[in-house]
Every structure is written in structure tokens, then in C-alpha cells.
């Protein structure tokens, strides 16, 4: 039977059996086609194959011209080890990528059809890259939207399990000897536990927690993993592991352990690299959350410590206090007040109201110091000037000249009247509202405390009749900027006028009124801390009993 021998080049010495099977039109096929015999010798090639393998000559051993993956595949096909149902063989020749489809003939020759897949490959790689960058973007946007550390760890672990592995364990930096662990499985629950673990049990974990680069996944033997590193209910034995550090802002934010079971594909180098990119994003978000919560905690602790006390009536004298913090929320203010009740009604209670120079942490620390020192010095409050000198000595430092101004008021009630000893240490003098509406400035002067080697101060004694009030206040009130033009100070005269209208009012109402007027004056503008304390001699002997409830019930019964 005469075969068609219409091949222009490389006319075979004999017609091959494979030729008969597939015909010889293959020689015109646009894809590279080559025929090799059972011994691995190159029998024939078409034009496209010659272009792909320049210099190849018929009869040459196949493995001299083609990559190992193809010559190995040929060997397997000739030995009948390759079933047609198997996945198509593929590999690269030079920088192009081909799928190789064999058509075996009865004589042992095999026709290899090489279908180029370079473009599809590139498209696939691009797809992967796009997918990964989408994941990274999602990681950043999801994690940065929460500043709650626990929530952030949960999300990071869950996302790692979702996109990178089957399960993930996030090991946060130790709290003492214990480590917070977050476990997550793909599609499963996320759980937290804080426990003592042996970091050295997982190769590379100790280094990762110190921020060193990760060890390659192939260095970690999955069988050696301790129980805590594998989430409960993980399907099957662990097949491959990645340990990667979570780099934070300067300090490590923890480490991430990624797990795949033995039935899944092991982590590739590309996946390891992606895991590091993922970890970099997650680490940045985690450490931002950690810094934020640390700062919030410090501010909260300080605020708690510095919050002014609620004032009530002590030994027959009414006290009321009001404090409006400056609007800059990140700064702890410098105003404070305290009432130290006397142990016995016949003794004096001590009221302190003050203002510390500066803002923020520095001011907060100084405020705390002053309040504590004054508390300890209470037994010496019978001599205000001496008390102030002791306080001054305790505050004095060569490092700075941060000072405080304050007013001391020793208060006791005798025979329905309130007796006051008032001393200003560089502070605005207290104002007294008499029952007839006159407002008196208490003529006490003294040196600020905390900056000079010694202080002097004069103490003024006065008496409040029932209904009269002594107001201690800080310059946040008189220096409140606002008004119709927006830049005028509330000022001494407006405060005095307001107080005139407060004659006979209870302590609480006086403070309320002053704070309200100053706030209205400021409007929406910025203001400093405003603090005020009113000391009022209560009006006596006025009892009003209104039995409205009884009459109401009666009315209902009558209906």
C-alpha cells in the first residue's frame, strides 16, 4: 500500500506505522509535531518542530534535543506506563510552554503533538497575581478598619486560613510567660486561647517572634508539630507547614503558622512568598491596633485618676463642683479640685482647686503629684502658707519650671455660719456672693508653687451667712474666648455680673449657672479646661411639704 509521501523534507526511509494511524498530513500541522521510535530516537519532525528545535537531525537520540520532561514522558509512553486518561503532559521548551499529546503507533513509534500554552500560562499567572493583590488589598482594608486587637487577630487568622492554607495559628507576642493563640480553619470557627507554650517546639517560630525572616517550609517536619500548633478537629495529618513573622512597626507583632493536610498540595515557593506579603500587611495592621489600644488604655487610666470627685454636703456645708475639659480630646487637662472632709464636724474640711501649667501627660503627672502630696499634708492644713511651702518643696525640680496655681479653703460650720480661711497661691482670688447680690473678691495673694525656691502667701478669714456662696474657679472661665465677635474674653466683669444674679442660690445651681454662661459665651469655639467649686452656707429652717400625690389619688377615687 503506497503511503502518501508528500513530505518535502526529511522523507523517511520507511513509512512508519504511526504515519498510517494518523496520516501524514501532520507534517503540515501548524503546531510542532515529532515522531520518535521505541528506543528514543528522533524519527521525523515537521516544519514547526524544526523551528522549535533548530539543528535537530532525524535519527538523533531524543534526549539530546528535547528537555528531560519530554524524553522521560516518551520513555513512559513507550513502556505503556502512561494511560491516555492521565493528565496531559506539559513543560517548557526554551521560554515557551507546551502541552504534549502522544499518539502511539503499533510499531512502537510515538507521534508527539506539542500544543503551545505559553499565552494561557501567562494569562493564568496574571490571574493569580491579580487574585493575590485583591487578597492583599482586602487584608489591609479589612484589618485596618478595626482597631480592636483581638478582633484584628481573629480576622487575620481567618483570612490566612481562607486564602493561604487549610488552617492557621496566629501566635501573638508573649504576655509574661503565656502566649495568646488564635486558631482558625478554612470555613470553620475562630478560637482564642492564652497558654504557656514551648516556642522552640516549632522550628523557626522563636526566630519569627523576634522578627527574623522565616525558615523555608521544607525545613519543617510536620510530624514534629506540637498539639497546640494544630487546631482542634484539623482533618488528617499535617502535610506542610509555613512559619512566617508578622512584622510590626519596629517591633514584631507575632508570627503566623500555616498548615495544610497531607492530602493537599504542599506549599510552593511562590506561596511562601505570598504568605510573607500577607503577613506584612497583617502585621502592620495588628501593631497599629496594638499601639492604639495601648494609648487608649494610658489615657483612660490617667483620666480615671484625674477625674474630679462628685461633691456633696459635708458637715453642714454645701459643696458643688463642675469641670468641663478642653475640647482637644487627646490631651488630659490641667485643672483639678478636691474636697477633703474633716474627720469631725468641729474641724475644718479642706477644699483645693488648682490649675497646672501645660497640657497632656506632663500636666497629668504634675496634677497627680499635687493631689497626692496635699492629701498627705492634710494634718498641717491649719497653716496654709506652711502647707504651700511643703508642697512647693516636694514639687521643685531642676529639670523644669512647670508650676501650679491653686486656692486653698479651710471650711467649718459654727452656729449656722460657715467660717472660711482662704489662701491663693498665684491663683485667681475666690469671689464671694453675699445675700444682697454684692460680689466680693477675696484679697488673698500668694506665690505659684513648684518653680521658685520658696513661696509666700497671705490667708484671709471670712464668714458666709446662710445662703451665701464662695466660688473658686480657674482662668478657663474668665479667659473663655467667644462672644458676639468671637474673640472677646468672658472676663472678670461678666463672671461678677452672673454671680450677682446667683445670690441666695444653692451651691449646685451657682456652679451650673457659671458653667452654662461661660459655655454659651464660647459657643462652638475652642476652650481651655473650666473648673469651679462653690462653697455655700445652706439656708436653714425652710421646710415645704407638698402632698400632691395624695390629692391626686383622692381625685381618681372620686371619679
Amino acid at each position, binding site marked *: 500500500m503506497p503511503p502518501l509521501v508528500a513530505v518535502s523534507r526529511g522523507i523517511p526511509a520507511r513509512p512508519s506505522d504511526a504515519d498510517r494511524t494518523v496520516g501524514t498530513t501532520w507534517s503540515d500541522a501548524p503546531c510542532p509535531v515529532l515522531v520518535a521510535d521505541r528506543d528514543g530516537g528522533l524519527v521525523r519532525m515537521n516544519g514547526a518542530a524544526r523551528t522549535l528545535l533548530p539543528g535537530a537531525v532525524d535519527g538523533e537520540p531524543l534526549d539530546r534535543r528535547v528537555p528531560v520532561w519530554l524524553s522521560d514522558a516518551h520513555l513512559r509512553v513507550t513502556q505503556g506506563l502512561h494511560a491516555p486518561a492521565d493528565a496531559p503532559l506539559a513543560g517548557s521548551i526554551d521560554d515557551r510552554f507546551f502541552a504534549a499529546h502522544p499518539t502511539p503507533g503499533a510499531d512502537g513509534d510515538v507521534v508527539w503533538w506539542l500544543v503551545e500554552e505559553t499565552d494561557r500560562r501567562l494569562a493564568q499567572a496574571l490571574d493569580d497575581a491579580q487574585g493575590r493583590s485583591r487578597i492583599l488589598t482586602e487584608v489591609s482594608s479589612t484589618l485596618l478598619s478595626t482597631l480592636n486587637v483581638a478582633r484584628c487577630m481573629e480576622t487575620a487568622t481567618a483570612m490566612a486560613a481562607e486564602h493561604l492554607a487549610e488552617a492557621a495559628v496566629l501566635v501573638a507576642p508573649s504576655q509574661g510567660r503565656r502566649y495568646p493563640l488564635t486558631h482558625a480553619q478554612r470555613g470553620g470557627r475562630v478560637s482564642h486561647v492564652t497558654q504557656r507554650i514551648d516556642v522552640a517546639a516549632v522550628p523557626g517560630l522563636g526566630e519569627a517572634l523576634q522578627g527574623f525572616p522565616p525558615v523555608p517550609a521544607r525545613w519543617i517536619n510536620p510530624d514534629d508539630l506540637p498539639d497546640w500548633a494544630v487546631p482542634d478537629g484539623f482533618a488528617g495529618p499535617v502535610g506542610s507547614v509555613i512559619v512566617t513573622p508578622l512584622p510590626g512597626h519596629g517591633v514584631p507583632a507575632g508570627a503566623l503558622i500555616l498548615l495544610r493536610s497531607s492530602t493537599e498540595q504542599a506549599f510552593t515557593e511562590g506561596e511562601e512568598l505570598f504568605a510573607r506579603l500577607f503577613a506584612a500587611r497583617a502585621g502592620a495592621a495588628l501593631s497599629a491596633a496594638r499601639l492604639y489600644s495601648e494609648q487608649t488604655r494610658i489615657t483612660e487610666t490617667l483620666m480615671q485618676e484625674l477625674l474630679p470627685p462628685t461633691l456633696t454636703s459635708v458637715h453642714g456645708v454645701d459643696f458643688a463642683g463642675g469641670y468641663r475639659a478642653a475640647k482637644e480630646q487627646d490631651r488630659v487637662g490641667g485643672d483639678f479640685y478636691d474636697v477633703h472632709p474633716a474627720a469631725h464636724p468641729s474641724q475644718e474640711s479642706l477644699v483645693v482647686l488648682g490649675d497646672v501649667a501645660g*497640657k497632656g501627660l506632663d500636666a497629668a503627672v504634675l496634677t497627680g503629684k499635687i493631689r497626692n502630696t496635699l492629701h498627705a499634708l492634710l494634718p498641717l492644713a491649719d497653716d496654709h502658707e506652711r502647707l504651700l511651702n511643703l508642697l512647693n518643696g516636694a514639687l521643685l525640680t531642676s529639670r523644669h*519650671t512647670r*508650676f501650679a496655681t491653686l486656692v486653698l479653703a479651710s471650711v467649718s460650720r459654727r452656729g449656722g455660719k460657715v467660717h472660711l480661711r482662704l489662701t491663693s497661691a*498665684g491663683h485667681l482670688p475666690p469671689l464671694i456672693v453675699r445675700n444682697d447680690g454684692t460680689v466680693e473678691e477675696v484679697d488673698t495673694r500668694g506665690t*505659684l508653687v513648684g518653680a*521658685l525656691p520658696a*513661696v*509666700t502667701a497671705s490667708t484671709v478669714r471670712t464668714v458666709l451667712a446662710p445662703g451665701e456662696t464662695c466660688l473658686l474657679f480657674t482662668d478657663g472661665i474668665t479667659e473663655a474666648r467667644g462672644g458676639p465677635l468671637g474673640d472677646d474674653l468672658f472676663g472678670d466683669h461678666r463672671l461678677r455680673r452672673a454671680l450677682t444674679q446667683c445670690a441666695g442660690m444653692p451651691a449646685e445651681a451657682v456652679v451650673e449657672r457659671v458653667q452654662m454662661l461661660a459655655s454659651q459665651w464660647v459657643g462652638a469655639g475652642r476652650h481651655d479646661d473650666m473648673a469651679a467649686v462653690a462653697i455655700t452656707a445652706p439656708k436653714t429652717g425652710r421646710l415645704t411639704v407638698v402632698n400632691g400625690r395624695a390629692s391626686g389619688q383622692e381625685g381618681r377615687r372620686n371619679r
Partner: protein
Amino acid sequence: MTDLHSDEFVLTVLRDPLTLTVRVSGELDYDTSDDLLRAVVEQLTEPCAFRDVRLDFRDLGYIDSTGLSALLMIHRRTSAAGALLHLDHRPEFLERMLTMTNVLDHLTAGGHREEAVEAEQDDGATEAGVP
């Protein structure tokens, strides 16, 4: 004279062989006090022979407690350097603040205080010099 309400904080430093003058314009507060302190201290750290340091407040618009704190620190430094501090052309609000806090006399104290500081330093030097 410039506008009293000008917010712009400006320091003008004038040097004579014996006198350092710093004109302070604008608001001396939490945000600007450090600048004044630094400007004065810089001049004092060089080996100087200033007898007087003059702060000129004619264009001062406002001062808060942090500003006063800076003045107290400047006084410490000028005393240590053996110079006398002068607070010139004090506006009324500054005068009131200095009076209320009772620091005016301290800030502008005459020679004896500085002499005392110098004496103290001399004592220290003498003691250190004795083997």
C-alpha cells in the same frame, strides 16, 4: 508698631557686647514657649559676657501658663549665667499675671541673687580644684 492682635509669633534677637535683647511678638503659649526658651538658651550657652538679658514684650499679644513657665526657666538660666533678666514694656495682662502669681520680684531680682548663685558656683569650682 505692629498689630497687637497679630497671631504671628516672631522672635527678634539683638546682640550687644553686654546685652542680649529678644523682642517677643505674638502669642507666647503652649505652642511657642519652647521657641523663646531655646532662642535665649542658645545665646547663653556660647561663652558669653552678657550682663543683661532683656525680653521686650511691647508686641506681646497673649501669654498663658506655659509662657510663664518658660519665663521662669529663662530666669534660672540667666541667673546661672550671671546675667540679669529684664522684662521690658510689659503689657497690662502680663503685669497682672506676674503680680497674681507673685513672681515679678523673683524674675527681675537685683544683683544679690545672682551674686549668690555665682558664689555657689565659685565654691564648687574651688572645692573641685583642691586635690
